[in-house]
């Protein structure tokens, strides 16, 4: 009988390990496997870092928003405009996520925000560790508003909590009103939906009500704010919504 595991190795073969302490060398006719229960949430590391970011931001009264959309929906354009309109009344900073280039960070710096660019390389989303590093670099003053422009992608960023107060999902009227149904996870987790480029509504076949209904199937009661980042329509509602978020949350 095997002393290590108590199995019966059979009579035919007797192998004796010499040296090497616990070495246990005999042919095994049956599996010797031990089950180790882990019950480990896969994204717990990211979620822990996100919780740390959230606490860090709350201590400083900083409002952080995670802005997500497909590439080209108008995130940077909206933020340029928002930075220009809001920075006279308080500090505004931006964390810019893109796979490559510092082009968007330059646009936002030109609009008046202190800006840090995070280039994710092949990465398709920002994560809490990247945002933590960017916040340290940015060092936003107390009470600031920090916009995080996520990598343009309606799939991957949905999974990664960054420590934001709220998730802002943007889509534009050139993308089709069925976008929410095609990318349900992103819309399911949204706190507000900005429908951008409404200046183009006369030229495209886009059903605003169908889009709102689709989004609300995934996220009951979701607020949809139609805007045009270039022409300025609806931005008042967007700024009001931001004001509501800036109020301290209970608890």
């Amino acid at each position, binding site marked *: 009988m095997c002393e*290590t*595991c108590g199995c019966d190795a059979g009579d035919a073969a007797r192998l004796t390990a010499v040296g090497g302490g616990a070495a*246990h*060398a005999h042919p*095994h006719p049956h599996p*010797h*496997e*031990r*089950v*180790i*229960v*882990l*019950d*480990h*949430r*896969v*994204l*717990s*590391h*990211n979620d822990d870092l996100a919780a740390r970011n959230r606490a860090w931001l709350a201590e400083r009264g900083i409002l952080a928003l995670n802005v997500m959309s497909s590439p080209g929906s108008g995130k940077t354009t909206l933020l340029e405009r928002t930075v220009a309109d809001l920075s006279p009344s308080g500090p505004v900073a931006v964390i810019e996520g893109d796979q490559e280039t510092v082009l968007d960070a330059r646009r936002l710096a030109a609009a008046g925000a202190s800006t840090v660019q995070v280039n994710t390389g092949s*990465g*398709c*989303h920002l*994560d809490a560790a990247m945002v933590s590093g960017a916040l340290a670099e940015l060092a936003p003053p107390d009470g600031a508003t920090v916009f995080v422009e996520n990598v343009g992608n309606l*799939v*991957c960023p*949905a*999974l*990664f909590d960054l420590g934001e107060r709220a998730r802002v999902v943007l889509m534009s009227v050139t993308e089709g009103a069925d976008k929410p*149904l095609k990318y*349900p*996870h992103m819309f*399911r987790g949204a706190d507000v939906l900005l429908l951008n480029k409404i200046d183009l509504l006369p030229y495209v076949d886009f059903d605003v009500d169908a889009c709102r209904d689709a989004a609300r*199937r*995934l996220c*009951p009661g979701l607020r949809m704010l139609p805007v045009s980042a270039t022409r300025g329509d609806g931005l008042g509602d967007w700024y009001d919504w931001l004001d509501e978020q800036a109020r301290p949350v209970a608890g």
Partner: protein
Amino acid sequence: MHELAVTESVIDAISAQLSDMRVTVVRLEIGKLSGVMPDAVRFCFELAGEGTCVEGARLDITEPDGTGECRACGSVFPARDPLALCPCGSAEVTVTGGAELTIKAVEVADHV
């Protein structure tokens, strides 16, 4: 593809606890509403597992359903996608759960 990041998190978490063992089976739970595709995780697991303690391990994935609750008729039923319809035909459904993304357990070889 976030499945690569997810798979790397799986491997990192296991390696952190069991780096000196040979893992033969990894049991994952990936909810049907988690937004993570099991097939993509399988693909990444083989690649990302090379040279780690899970190299060559079998991946067992269970995919729990979410729960749909119909706001029209009140019935509760298993939901396999975020747009699940109630058996009564209504789309007024609140879907919860099914977002599990958990390493349930591993099996390790007792003898290296």
